């Protein structure tokens, strides 16, 4: 059903460092969260280059409450730290984005990327193993082929279910700048990858060649005024993609019209309100995420203070603007000083496009119901919630008098930020990454 009672999210699962803050290490910080197309799997990537996949439990009679719970399914090291000797640059292992491929057989495939290299992973199950190979002994060492005098047929033996993740393709050396987005095309054979200045188009089976489709690098880098911040393919129209910029604009390109998409076919920009202009205007208007609705009719953009919904047929202004944490407008100066103003919040749609979700500070995240225009602030934290209890809406007090249960703007913890959230494609299940913890909430079961 739709999110009528958005505050009834119960609280079945928390993953992450059980210890206190002190045990939190940088490598454990979750850097991306993504459901697959069916919603049965949820992948997270972290700053340590690991990918953890959670699987939703099937109905289980012995444990009636376990339905829908997500448990760890597979963990693997996707990227390792590297060093670019030519440029004397360290390449972090941090997973910037994960995108699932539409399922094509019993296995699952996903793309994961750090700043430079995109990898295609296959996650498959194995419950039988072969024994008695001709060419290798039981430890897997190759036998000398000349010592093999008799042949035997390997035998299949059942074994404990094993989930393997194996790298199938590595798409490297195509990006000079840092990759911020990857997006799989609806033609199921290509995907795009975007860095600060360029967007490349890849074929999923070809690793040694990609096509540059957008290049906004000026001949003279001193003339650089904007960078690409996010890019995504349209969910149904294989020829359409959008990319957002640090100037708060979104360009929609049609790959049919030309091989190089440097010229956009639509340009979405909201005229600036002169009254609210300030030193920080440009910084806070930078778009940190862009997402098409499942229907393909709308797209949503997140800037520092708000989330906007655009109708693809109207370029002049968004059809909806939701304030995420307007109370921070007065604090931009200190947010600039502690660099928080550059935080890149992501946003997501629910399965029916009727609600949207995005993160904030103090482990708060926000949900907006597009039909009823209601919104709610919820908190992801161990202390404030009990298992199977509903989440309590939170309020930030902006005026002088603080009511009971309200929290003052001044006491918000800006180190606890929720940048990455994901919504199940069909059900009311959400995943919220709060630094090194992953919270999975779902609609209360009756």
């Amino acid at each position, binding site marked *: 059903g739709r999110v009528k009672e958005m505050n009834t999210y119960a609280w079945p699962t928390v*993953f*992450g*460092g*059980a210890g206190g803050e002190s045990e939190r290490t940088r490598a*454990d910080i979750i850097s991306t969260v993504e459901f697959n197309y069916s919603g049965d799997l949820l992948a997270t990537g972290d700053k340590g280059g*690991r990918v*953890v996949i959670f699987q939703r439990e099937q109905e289980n009679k012995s444990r009636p409450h376990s339905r829908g719970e997500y448990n*760890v*399914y*597979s*963990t*693997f*090291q996707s990227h390792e730290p590297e060093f670019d000797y030519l440029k004397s640059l360290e390449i972090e292992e941090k997973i910037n984005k994960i995108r699932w491929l*539409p399922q*094509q*057989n*019993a*296995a699952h*495939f996903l793309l994961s990327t750090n700043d430079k290299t995109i990898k295609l992973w*296959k996650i498959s199950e*194995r419950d*039988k193993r*072969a024994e*008695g*190979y*001709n*060419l290798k002994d039981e430890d897997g060492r190759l036998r000398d*082929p*000349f010592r*093999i005098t*008799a*042949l*035997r*047929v*390997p*035998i*299949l033996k059942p074994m*404990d279910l*094993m*989930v*393997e*993740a*194996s*790298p*199938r*393709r*590595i798409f490297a050396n195509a990006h000079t700048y840092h990759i911020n987005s990857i997006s799989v095309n*609806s*033609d*199921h*054979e290509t995907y795009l990858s975007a860095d600060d200045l360029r967007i490349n188009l890849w074929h999923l*089976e070809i690793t040694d060649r990609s096509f540059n489709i957008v290049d906004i690098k000026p001949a003279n880098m001193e003339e650089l005024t904007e960078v690409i911040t996010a890019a995504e393919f349209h969910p*149904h129209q*294989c*020829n359409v993609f959008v990319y957002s910029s640090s100037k708060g604009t979104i360009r929609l390109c049609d*790959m*049919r*019209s*030309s*091989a190089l998409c440097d010229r956009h076919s639509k340009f979405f920009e909201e005229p600036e309100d002169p009254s609210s202009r300030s030193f920080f205007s440009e910084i806070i208007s930078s778009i940190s995420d862009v997402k098409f609705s499942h229907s393909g009719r709308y797209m949503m953009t997140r800037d520092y203070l708000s989330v906007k919904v655009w109708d693809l047929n109207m370029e002049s202004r968004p059809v909806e603007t939701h304030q995420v944490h307007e109370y921070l407008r007065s604090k931009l100066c200190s947010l600039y000083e502690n660099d928080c103003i550059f935080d890149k919040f992501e946003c997501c749609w629910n399965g029916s496009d009727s609600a949207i979700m995005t993160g904030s500070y103090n482990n708060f995240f926000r949900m907006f119901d597009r039909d009823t225009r209601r919104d709610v602030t919820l908190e992801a934290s161990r202390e404030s919630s009990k298992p199977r209890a509903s989440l309590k809406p939170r309020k930030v007090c902006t005026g002088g008098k603080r009511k009971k249960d309200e929290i003052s703007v001044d006491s918000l913890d800006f180190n606890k930020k929720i940048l990455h959230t994901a919504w199940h494609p069909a059900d009311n299940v959400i995943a919220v990454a709060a630094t090194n913890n992953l919270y999975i909430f779902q609609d209360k079961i009756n």
Partner: protein
Amino acid sequence: MNPCTCFFRLGKGRRGSIRFLSPPVFLSSDLQLLQWGSEGSLNHRDRNSAPQPLLNPRGGLLPCCLGAGRGLGAGRGLGAGREAVTSSRRRKNMAGASGLGTGPGAAGGDGDDSLYPIAVLIDELRNEDVQPPLENLATVEETVVRDKAVESLRQISQEHTPVALEAYFVPLVKRLASGDWFTSRTSACSLFSVCYPRASNAVKAEIRQQFRSLCSDDTPMVRRAAASKLGEFAKVLELDSVKSEIVPLFTNLASDEQDSVRLLAVEACVSIAQLLSQDDLETLVMPTLRQAVEDKSWRVRYMVADKFSELQKAMGPKITLNDLIPAFQNLLKDCEAEVRAAAAHKVKELGENLPIEDRETIIMNQILPYIKELVSDTNPHVKSALASVIMGLSTILGKENTIEHLLPLFLAQLKDECPEVRLNIISNLDCVNEVIGIRQLSQSLLPAIVELAEDAKWRVRLAIIEYMPLLAGQLGVEFFDEKLNSLCMAWLVDHVYAIREAATNNLMKLVQKFGTEWAQNTIVPKVLVMANDPNYLHRMTTLFCINALSEACGQEITTKQMLPIVLKMAGDQVANVRFNVAKSLQKIGPILDTNALQGEVKPVLQKLGQDEDMDVKYFAQEAISVVAQRLRKLDFPVKDSGEPSVPRADKNHFPRPRVPGEDTGKGPVYQLHGDTRDTLAQLEIAELVHFSQSRD
């Protein structure tokens, strides 16, 4: 993150990709095959495995390993006799297959690439009970494996009797066509056409029905596979069915929402058009093709341009004149450069495929105006595409038109800012030469060549060097000596090695063209002078030139002019030069006579063999052994019946006995084999024996 209870693997383990023809490896970690095999009784076979020799004497693997798997599926074993017979055939085919096996290794990690050799093997078994594994392989996610399995299935289908085809093969295709995952349905698309011709009418109707449903599959992958096989399928259908069923499918695919599907329909259009009459074409195909020419997506229009010659042939002259020529004009002025470039590539073929009597007028009136525009296109790819074919028009248009209309274009292109355009014109000069003679061009040609020869990009210089022999042939020796010779010599001292190397080869080709006398007078003196150059790289270039030229120049020039220089350079202070002297002596050895070898080369090599530099020593010793071989052969021609006169030398190293002076001049008679060190050791012994003999 909490450690998880689930099993995980980092996927970093050592996993060599399993290649064919490496020692027998195909029963590796392949679950697919084993799952199938396990339907039978693996253990049973294992216990009863007969103690017969499974490896044949030559170390090749008998097919029993597969026969075992196969026997399981069928519940029987295979006779050893038959296996032995098939083994030789397989060996041959294995060698052939290994060439194809380059793809999956690159495809990545583990698992499926080991399936590949199995697919190849089963390919050759040609037996219906191998279908289960092939059917499995046709559904895996790696495209290379799937394609190979499908290829095998297609071959197998031809070995079926019509009855067996319907009993076994058609059901398999149906299973694939209704598979859950797109991988199996894409594979099915390629199999309909091979079973359709020999199926009964009832089955034919079913096959058509299944193909229809795949053409409107949910996933674009399957629709792409269906669209790419539509033409092939149309060819095996009855004409009525083509009209009533294929054409509507074609129309649908050509208006698919995915442009990757629509563009494949253009390809199908060619095959379908070949089957229909002119009237049918006009009513059934042309509306769709017209739509493709104006498709919103440049990729579809590109495909029309790319397939234009095929379309032109399939549609016939009438439709070409009425529809295709105007369409081509549009493609030549398309807003997307990729499309214009693809169309520009087809200009020559278009002309050639026109009816002879109308060619000239059509090109002059309807195509040439657009070509003139393209010569000054904004996009370099378009211009260079045009430059690569435009010369071909001169044969079609004849002398007068070429001089009046094409020549100005050529001259403009020779001055184009983009080097590739100039290069493409120069590389196709032969076409023009036939029609108007190259003199017309030579005045403009020279500045263009000089400019390319001095281009800042070494790849451009390299490209123009490659065309020098051709140009020399076209322009004649006088023009060459006068204008181009100095360029060729200048390249010898280029600062890029690849250019110097290409320049050396160029000299050789020029000598082949202009003869030894020319070489002796113009090239050799200049090359030899460089031996005194203060730059050791240039001194080495002399040696490289001698290596290249000695063969073409023959024994006399080599012995009298080149050899003294080489020998003199043996005292060079730079070790690189010295060991290149050794290499050169080895190279020119076969051209020299015994006296020179014995009296001049051998002492110098022996001296170099004592050099303090180990590389010089190494190459000198290598040269000594080769020269020794040569000497031995000159002195002791091997008799037909006898053993070689030198003990321990392998007889196979002497292809046939030779007598002095018999030299064909085709390079060293003897070449060192793969493992140089071993051969060398062997030869050193041979050489010692030889020298001691000659002392006697």
